[in-house]
């Protein structure tokens, strides 16, 4: 028995839009939806429990037990699983803008229909990112008090915080405005679209660039010390982000009655994914050449050996690296075959391959080798502890939950405008 009943009809006010979002996202839905909702909620709650009551017990509870010692992180490898997935999701968030640019900057009618899904993806990804940072920082409450108060303008971490929260706000506004107009069967006003895309597009590139700048200018980490790191981040982000969007579109088309995506949207998204993958793979080739062809700094060579050959018992890093290369190449080859890239099964396969390839490239394989061997030359291996995996999964659960709720609302609003309302005739 629901406590709140969804309204029958909604007015024109913004409050009604918020009511609409709550109704469509939380109060309506099938059994399967609520099951997924509950499962994700449970996962998220478990992650938060592990974080607050175990990993950060000395901070939040003042307890003698627990602490970050429960993670596998060490003085040699101070950043691990959390930062790895932080890097990946920042990329996914940034790439949400691809749909926005196609729709609002180039005025593509097919992309206009689905651009809001890019915003939803960005919101969910950035929430995941912020939660992962919170789990990684030793004293999160202090950080929240001090970071706005005593910023160090030279620290890339502060700038990352600024652009991430800014981009989150922008996309939340974009989502809200789009739903507000579409649910009333009105097109988006130009005075919103123009400033939005002018601010959001540089922000999108900015979040990933700044994230790469956190690590790329450190002489302490020769594996990262290359101006290629930021372009490489952005390149593979523009493969994985649209691939996740494509996956969402294919699934929505199959499971939402009456929802139809233009063929051209698929074609162009496929093109972006393939192009970005090719550039990313090319960057990897260039890095391989720089490290292995002639000679290079021994320390950098040793860290690259961890990445490509799995030295010092870090075999899983090498597996991930070669998975990136092989699956990336496979996805590109498949995307070049017309019969594959034009069928929905083929698209699903290519999108999945791309996502798996970039997860392998972006997460552990880019972060961990920079710490092994450490500046003293000690190779201290790092395998994430079960607690870290649990917290990471929990944070992803919360992110996915937000995605699920917001995407449902967004698709409902799109349906109202484009498939049942006035937009259907365009």
């Amino acid at each position: 028995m629901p406590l709140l009943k969804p309204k029958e009809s909604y007015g024109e006010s913004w409050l009604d839009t918020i009511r609409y979002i709550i109704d469509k996202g939380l109060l309506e839905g099938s059994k399967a939806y609520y099951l997924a909702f509950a499962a994700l909620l449970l996962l998220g709650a478990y992650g938060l429990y592990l974080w607050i009551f175990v990993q950060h017990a000395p901070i939040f509870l003042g307890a003698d037990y627990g602490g970050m010692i429960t993670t596998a992180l060490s003085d040699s490898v101070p950043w691990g699983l959390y930062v790895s997935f932080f890097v990946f999701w920042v990329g996914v968030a940034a790439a949400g803008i691809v749909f926005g640019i196609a729709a609002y900057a180039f005025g593509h009618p097919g992309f206009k229909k689905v651009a809001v899904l890019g915003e939803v993806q960005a919101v969910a990804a950035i929430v995941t990112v912020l939660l992962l940072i919170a789990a990684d920082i030793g004293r999160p409450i202090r950080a929240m008090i001090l970071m706005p108060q005593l910023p160090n303008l030279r620290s890339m971490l502060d700038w990352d915080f600024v652009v991430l929260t800014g981009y989150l706000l922008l996309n939340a506004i974009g989502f809200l405005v789009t739903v507000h107009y579409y649910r009333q069967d009105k097109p988006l006003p130009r005075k919103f679209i123009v400033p939005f895309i002018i601010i959001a597009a540089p922000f999108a590139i900015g979040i990933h660039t700044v994230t790469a700048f956190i690590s790329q200018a450190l002489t302490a980490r020769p594996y990262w010390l290359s101006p290629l790191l930021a372009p490489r981040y952005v390149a593979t982000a523009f493969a994985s982000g649209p691939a996740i969007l494509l996956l969402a579109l294919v699934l929505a088309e199959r499971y939402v009655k009456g929802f139809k995506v233009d063929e051209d949207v698929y074609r162009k998204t496929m093109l972006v994914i393939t192009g970005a993958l090719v550039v990313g793979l090319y960057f990897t080739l260039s890095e391989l050449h720089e490290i292995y062809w002639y000679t290079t700094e021994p320390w950098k060579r040793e860290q690259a050996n961890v990445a490509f050959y799995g030295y010092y018992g870090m075999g899983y890093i090498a597996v991930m690296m070669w998975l990136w290369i092989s699956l990336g190449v496979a996805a590109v080859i498949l995307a070049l075959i017309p019969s594959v890239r034009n069928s929905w099964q083929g698209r699903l396969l290519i999108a999945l391959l791309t996502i798996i390839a970039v997860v392998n490239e972006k997460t552990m394989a880019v972060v961990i080798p920079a710490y092994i061997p450490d500046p003293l030359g000690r190779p201290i291996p790092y395998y994430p502890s079960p607690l870290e995996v649990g917290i990471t999964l929990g944070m992803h659960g919360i992110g996915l939950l937000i995605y699920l709720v917001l995407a449902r609302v967004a698709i409902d609003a799109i349906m109202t405008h484009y498939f049942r309302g006035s937009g259907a005739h365009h």
Partner: protein
Amino acid sequence: MAEERQARVDETRRSLLKAAAVLGGASIISFAAVDKDKLKAVLKPVALEEVLGETAEAAEDATELERRAKQKEQEIKKMCMAEAEKICKAQGQDSPACKEATKRCEMIKVKATPPRKGVRFAMALDINKCIGCRRCAYACVMENNMDRELRIEWIKVVGLPREELELLNPKMDYTDAPERNMVYIPMACMHCEDPPCTMVCPVVATYKEPDGIVVIDYDRCIGCRYCMTACPYGARRFNWKKPRVPVTELNPNMHILGNVVRQPHVVEKCTWCIQRTRDGGVPACVEVCPVGSRVFGDLNDPASPIRRVIEEYGAFVLRPEAGTKPRFFYYFGPARTPKKEWVTGEKEGGKKG
């Protein structure tokens, strides 16, 4: 219809302009009228303690750091006394452990000594002399109240083959030293001229003092570990859990930016024993070194031993390519220790040692 709309727009615009003009005028007047010093005092960042409501009453003329040091002193004393009482209850009032603990607790003093003007500290180490005994690392732990359970050490002694001094896969857990074909290089914070750790800190919790010591404000550190990622010398350590120092081993001579008892989830590192050197002493590692391989002093003082060593032997730094300009110098002094015959017993040709 259109005219009406236009009129409405004009009216809105006029009232907006009016409001902007009033606001602008008001801000100009207030900017001119308000006392700048007062304004600065208002705009000063709020201390964490104030936010958390822990501010203690303190003397008016004390600096913020001194105030915090005094407060910390009371906190640590209380904690120490509680621990000491436990020991006394368990082992009896006359037991040596109880006496030691109470004595140390009573002696606790947390200082906030500021840097002396015109001083630029530096350290140099003679690689030829170092025998890799790790007494410096041990003395450092005892002096600086490091957590004993995590086995935090600020000084790491790396053993490298004499042929190639490449900092890769060093011998660090050796049990027998010195070996003939090895050199031993103790490494800790290099107190660089351009420290990347302070550049990356998002909350200015770590910074360089005028006398060249790179310090960490433990009350400000948010534990993001970016500085550990940025340090090319692996000098920084993290308190991965609540740190614990047995009160019978507590060093009561503390500095708020140095060896004061740490908190969980903050970063720490060598401070060149700020609690000693700011008061004119030398770091514990220099004092304890059995072969006198360490030299500490003021770079700006022409008569200081550090200047003499640099001028006489020439010095180099580790990882110069990192570009951080360390102020921890290494040099190869006159006598090679140990000489071959001292270790093997057989005599080489040539001069006698």
